[in-house]
């Protein structure tokens, strides 16, 4: 049953089409320089979200080259919901003449995230990942006269282009090893051939996977491609930074999940198979990412840079769960994929809320008004603006992993999943060490988050800091704080969906082996042609 009587590809990609066409519309309407442009953008994202819900309800025909599983539904739901918040936070960022460009780029980037989840082909996956990144390169520099913004744009662009090129080089080896660009399917696909090491043997698969994961490490800001993060986060406007903490990361983690499930996680989670090469690569990446992020954050005076390094550390926590793999069962306490999907959604909101609170506090510098940046700027903010201070505190406590916030549950899920998913495998000892290391790291992290809170609550109010008057910004800060609390008290709303999404990640293995589709997954897993 379809909603529109059209070609199946239009139906199954309806939310993405709405976003892209909406983006073009907004770009054209931008010529008129109207104030209500952000309303149109809001309506476009909301329409895409509603369409996604309808599609989920009625189901769509399966199209070759596109997946139609619950991970796609999760990406649509979370990506578009957080997308609405991002739009609210960013409403005041673009200048009068650049609103059309700015909002349309936001829409294109969101469409990219959705397409990453929808891609069932290497070409489409690569183009979708580029569609996520390329608009963000421009958004950093748009409407900023600051030299620092120009520098941030340049750095982000070149590292991004390099990472994308490297990932593409990795894709070329995966293609060579498998002989096809289709990711999943019962016929000839990367999934069916890569498990046996492909036509050219393990080496090509491992080269391909390592290069691909290297490129994706840039997207999620993991070591060794973390060096841009602090500069870019500092140079960009605070609301755009809030977006950078979610959109490319979300797309990156979805892509990593897809790529690792290509080989049924066997290269990633098994320390003995295929010489365990990839297991140890990921293990070291996760450990280094946590350590580098947290230790460098300790030295920062600038809150934006501090949160940038904390964003690196958070990628490390999520990588820990990915090293463990999906394990068995859908529960986030036992399933690494579920835990990561839960964590990235909560992290996106916490991070956005923290940067939105910074953007709410305005200071007047040499080159015009800008958002508060340093610890001195936010000194005593909670005394003068109690609500903004409270929201900042909730988001920062969430990032710290303090109980009563969603961040606490996220950390519990990630570490618990890492332990139980690896239980009984050869890598269990290594995983225990990694988890202990991760817990120690979150303890270190508390030190610098506390500095933000102390500056905000205990110091004398700073001079020359005013509050933003943008109503959308206030609304979005309130929403972020409420969501961070709500994910603690009602985590089920989110993790029910993330467990559902990771069931499909696991399901590929069992379905391939049993060669039959069980009732629970038949409706959702349509990357597979009918048997």
């Amino acid at each position, binding site marked *: 049953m379809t909603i529109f009587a059209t070609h199946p590809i239009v139906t199954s990609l309806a939310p993405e089409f709405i976003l892209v066409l909406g983006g073009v519309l907004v770009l054209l309407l931008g010529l008129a320089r109207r104030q209500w442009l952000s309303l149109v953008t809001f309506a476009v994202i909301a329409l895409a979200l509603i369409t996604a819900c309808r599609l989920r309800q009625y189901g769509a025909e399966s199209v070759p080259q596109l997946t139609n599983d619950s991970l796609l539904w999760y990406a649509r739901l979370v990506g578009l919901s957080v997308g609405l918040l991002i739009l609210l936070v960013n409403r005041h960022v673009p200048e009068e003449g650049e609103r059309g460009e700015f909002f349309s780029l936001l829409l294109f980037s969101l469409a990219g995230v959705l397409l990453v989840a929808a891609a069932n082909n290497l*070409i489409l996956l690569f183009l979708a990942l*580029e569609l996520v990144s*390329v608009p963000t*390169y421009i958004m950093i520099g748009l409407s900023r006269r600051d*030299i620092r913004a120009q520098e941030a744009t*340049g750095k982000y662009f*070149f590292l991004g282009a390099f990472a994308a090129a490297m990932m593409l080089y990795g894709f070329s080896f995966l*293609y060579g090893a498998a002989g096809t660009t289709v990711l999943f399917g019962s016929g000839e696909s990367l999934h069916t051939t890569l498990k046996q090491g492909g036509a*050219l043997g393990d080496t090509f698969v491992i080269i391909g996977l390592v290069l691909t994961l290297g490129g994706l490490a840039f997207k999620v800001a993991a070591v060794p491609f973390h060096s841009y993060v602090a500069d870019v986060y500092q140079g960009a406007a605070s609301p755009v930074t809030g977006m950078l903490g979610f959109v490319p990361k979300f797309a990156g983690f979805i892509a990593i999940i897809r790529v690792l499930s290509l080989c049924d996680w066997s290269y990633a989670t098994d320390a003995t198979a295929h010489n365990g090469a990839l297991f140890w690569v990921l293990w070291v990446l996760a450990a280094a990412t946590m350590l580098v992020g947290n230790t460098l954050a300790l030295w920062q005076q600038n809150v934006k840079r501090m949160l940038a390094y904390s964003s690196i550390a958070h990628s490390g926590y999520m990588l820990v769960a990915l090293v463990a793999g999906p394990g068995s069962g859908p529960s986030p306490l036992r399933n690494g994929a579920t835990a990561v999907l839960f964590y990235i959604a909560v992290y996106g909101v916490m991070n956005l809320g923290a940067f939105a609170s910074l953007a709410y506090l305005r200071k007047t510098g040499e080159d015009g008004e800008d958002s508060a940046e340093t610890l001195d700027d936010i000194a005593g903010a909670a005394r003068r603006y109690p609500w903004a201070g409270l929201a900042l505190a909730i988001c920062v406590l969430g990032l710290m992993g303090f109980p009563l916030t969603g961040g606490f549950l996220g950390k519990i899920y990630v570490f618990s999943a890492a332990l139980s998913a690896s239980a009984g495998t050869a890598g269990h000892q290594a995983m225990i060490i990694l988890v202990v290391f991760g817990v120690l790291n979150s303890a270190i992290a508390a030190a610098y988050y506390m500095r933000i809170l102390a500056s905000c609550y205990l110091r004398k109010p700073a001079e020359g800091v005013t509050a933003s008057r943008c109503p959308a910004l206030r609304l979005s800060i309130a929403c972020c704080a409420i969501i961070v609390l709500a994910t603690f008290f009602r985590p089920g709303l989110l993790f029910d969906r993330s467990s559902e999404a990771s069931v499909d990640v696991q399901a590929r293995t069992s379905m391939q082996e049993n060669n039959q589709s069980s009732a629970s997954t038949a409706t959702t897993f349509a990357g597979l042609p009918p048997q």
Partner: protein
Amino acid sequence: MFPDEFYDFLLDGVLTIGLTHYLILSVLLFSLGILCMVTKRNAIGILIGVELVLNAASINFVAFSKYQTGGLDGHIVALFIILLAAAEAAIAIAIFMNFYNTLRTIDVDRGDELRL
């Protein structure tokens, strides 16, 4: 001058072009591209490095397509890569026009305002 086996090796393994030759070429291009990105300080120089790496990937795709699968997949990927490289170059030039307008240079080392 040389034993016959050497000429056989030269003819079959070296002079008859096969997959390996293309892979070696692409690895060379990839390494040169990365070297170019690391050493060049001029923005356009770095962009050329990025293009070299993208071309290395294209060569891989087409070579695998010819010698491994026989299909057209790899050729199509190469076409997409060319399109993408063009789009990326356009954005790079826009970004560095802006950079030039602010700093009067496209030497990327001159942008060093962002620090602790």
